């Protein structure tokens, strides 16, 4: 089976500045679980942006689900992104949509009728403990609730690959443990998971592959 993501000698620089990522090579296999860690500003978010096609590398080769991303047109990018669930560090919930509508957004952009996904979204919101917050707008949600809404939105499309950027950064240790258990369960159900974090305590709770980024280079600890 092809790798979910494969980087080969990938380098990235912004404009004429120095390279922020140098000769990065690694792969993420189907059904795998890994942490991406490193000091703040080391390039974790940049690496993740390359993985969900928000950035293009200055050099090197990136393949996503076996496709060379440099040859994709915008529609193909959209189709590939539907196979990825993304949890942003800052949640990126749309403030004018309710929790329910935010979570349903990935299905709505597919052109599905609301009646076809209503039960599914409601069920998922129950799972993440937001069953009674469905009709609330994000500005009145707590940090932890926003985090869970963002996770639910990433999961509703049943992604093959889940990217989570600091998913426990805004929650207390108890909720962080719960969220980690959620990601582990998702991985067991077949989703490849990559969690970017600098929370050593969180990583110590689960024995998984670690990708460590420092000084623009990536070190893999299987």
């Amino acid at each position, binding site marked *: 089976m092809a790798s979910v993501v494969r980087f080969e000698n990938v380098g990235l620089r912004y404009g004429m500045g120095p390279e922020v990522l140098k000769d990065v090579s690694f792969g993420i296999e189907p059904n795998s679980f890994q942490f991406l860690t490193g000091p703040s500003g080391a390039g974790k978010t940049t690496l993740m942006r390359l993985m969900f096609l*928000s950035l293009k590398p200055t050099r090197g080769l990136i393949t996503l689900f076996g496709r060379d991303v440099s040859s994709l047109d915008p529609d193909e990018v959209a*189709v590939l*992104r*539907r196979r990825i669930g993304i949890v942003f560090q800052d949640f990126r919930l749309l403030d004018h949509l309710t929790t329910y509508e935010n979570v349903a957004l990935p299905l709505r*952009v597919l*052109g599905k009728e*609301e009646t076809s996904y209503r039960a599914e979204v409601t069920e998922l919101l129950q799972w993440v403990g937001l069953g009674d917050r469905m009709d609330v707008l994000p500005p009145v949600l707590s940090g932890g609730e926003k985090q869970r809404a963002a996770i639910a939105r990433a999961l509703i499309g049943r992604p093959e690959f889940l990217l989570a950027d600091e998913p426990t950064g805004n929650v207390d240790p108890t909720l962080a443990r719960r969220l980690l258990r959620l990601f582990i*369960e998702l991985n067991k159900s077949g989703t490849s998971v990559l969690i970017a974090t600098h929370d050593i305590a969180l990583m110590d709770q689960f024995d998984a592959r670690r990708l460590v980024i420092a000084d623009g280079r990536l070190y893999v600890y299987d």
Partner: protein
Amino acid sequence: MSTTETERVEKAISGAPMGPAGKPARPSRAAAIVPRATVAGRALVAVVAIMTFLASLTIGTALAVRATAATWRADVKREVTIQIRAGEKAATDAQVQAAVDLAKGTAGIAGVHVLTPEETSRLLEPWLGAGLDLADLPVPRVIVLRLDGTGRADLPRLKRTLSDRIPTATLDDHRNWSERLALMAQGVTVTGIGLLALVALATILTVVFATRAAVATNRSVVEVLHFVGARDGFIAAQFQRHFLRIGAEGGLIGGLSACAIFLAVAFLPRSGLLPAGEDQTAFLGWLDPGPLGFAGIGLAVVTVALATALTSRVTVYRTLRTIQ
């Protein structure tokens, strides 16, 4: 997901089962993905309304002028006149009679009328004043020939015969007037098309800037839509829907306002607001766009709405390319 999986994830989140998932009644109509308030709203409706109003006035006026000019031309071409230069009365009367006989013997002429001194006097009144005694002036005699409209009348031949037999007679087929009217109608039409092009350009540019501003304001929404897998077409459609509504609303306001102006002008003479009198009742009577003009205004409204939506769609596509 299966029930077992549901229970597992549920337990992972809360540590305890949560019971059967409820399905609360939800409104079937989802909120707009692009917040309506952030799309340049009222100001753009006003701009589109003004542009449509100007375009509709231009269309209506140009078509009214064209129709009126066509009517005038038809009237002018339906009549020709013979003028007999003034001379000794008995001789002039004989020449008038000879000209009438010639005209009556010409095919295609439906009627012949010799203007009486009173009628001639009325014609000259704007220039020479009322109460004129034409007997003291060498005023030519005028014979009005009404054509039957079949085009059978051989006017060049009549002209030749008249000048051969009655040297003091001249035939005026009003060709100069007709050509001037045609030229004026063409000029108004060309000017109207030019004005329409300018109004269209201004409308498109306004919508382009408004769309760019709307996309820029909603950049975070666009980014999230991209990241959840929305195609550019889906995102463009969200903006296009708003701008179609704005275009339709502004277009209708502008188009209906222009129709109201034309209808008011048409009904003004009957309203009794104008002073009585033949000339006053004809006040702006020519400014009637007719069914074709009102249809043109309707078409302008539809075109403005569609052009607004299409322009926003193209602009969104172009803008999206810059924020992939």
